């Protein structure tokens, strides 16, 4: 493993987005930050800013209004990046599969790298999911993506 891969493995900055979840999985993600689970042991911090994040944790079945927000957040994250769908409803819609306003899973909107099961997903499972995702992240080529011009960036910002 070269240095860059190692650094990626050891420094996952997390962005958490709630795409219409019931909060069950969200509070479990928060639990991951707290002393008993302490995901910072793996270098993970919750950055709250898509531009700084490497890992997008999404909970919830994605509804018709936050679909666009989710897509924008994903766009704003710089490569390489991974998406982790946390919880059953983020994976497939789960119990909200017949709700009219739900799209039924994150993978309907953006590509998902890791699915974390559970309703609510337990903190241990979430940590495992992030680690599993990092293995994928480390191997990703650092493919150059043309930086957005500031005009484009503004447009995205305005839509947000």
């Amino acid at each position, binding site marked *: 493993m070269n240095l860059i891969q190692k650094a990626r493995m050891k420094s996952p900055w997390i962005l958490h987005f709630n795409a219409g979840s019931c909060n069950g999985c969200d509070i479990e993600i928060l639990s991951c930050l707290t002393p*008993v689970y302490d995901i910072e042991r793996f270098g993970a911090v919750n950055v709250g800013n898509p531009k700084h994040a490497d890992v997008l944790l999404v909970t919830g079945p994605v509804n018709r209004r936050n679909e666009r927000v989710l897509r924008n957040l994903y766009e704003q994250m710089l490569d390489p990046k991974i998406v982790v769908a946390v919880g059953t409803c983020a994976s*497939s819609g789960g*119990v909200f599969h017949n709700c009219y306003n739900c799209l039924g899973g994150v993978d309907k909107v953006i590509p998902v790298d890791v699915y974390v099961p559970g309703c609510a997903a337990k903190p241990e499972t979430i940590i495992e*999911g992030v680690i599993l995702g990092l293995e994928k992240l480390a191997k990703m080529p650092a493919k150059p993506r043309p930086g957005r011009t500031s005009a484009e960036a503004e447009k995205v910002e305005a839509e947000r």
Partner: protein
Amino acid sequence: MARMLRSVLRNALSKPATRPFPEAPRAEFEKARGLITFDCTDCRFCGACALKCPTGAIRVVREERRIYFEPFKCIVCGACLEACRFGSVRMGPERRKPVYEKPVEVYAKPETEAEPKPPDPGA
């Protein structure tokens, strides 16, 4: 602030509350709702589990005598367990692990029991 100072200093001096997670995972609680699996030995493919499932995670195809189960739809509520009168649904405390691709699990009767049993008239 003084009270909090005591509290943080105590933390600094004692062992961290962190569980050594991936290295030494804690045993699951005995009654934890974890993995749903099927044991089709006695299954009649009646579909009661599928009907009661609030998420549509189970698909019972009678003609094929198979159960298609999508664990990433399942919320481990246990409704199928309560619905099955033949004890074919199992729930264990183990935690399901994260994956790259969502699987569909297929359960069928063990080969020896290939001959379909007649439906239970009493039901």
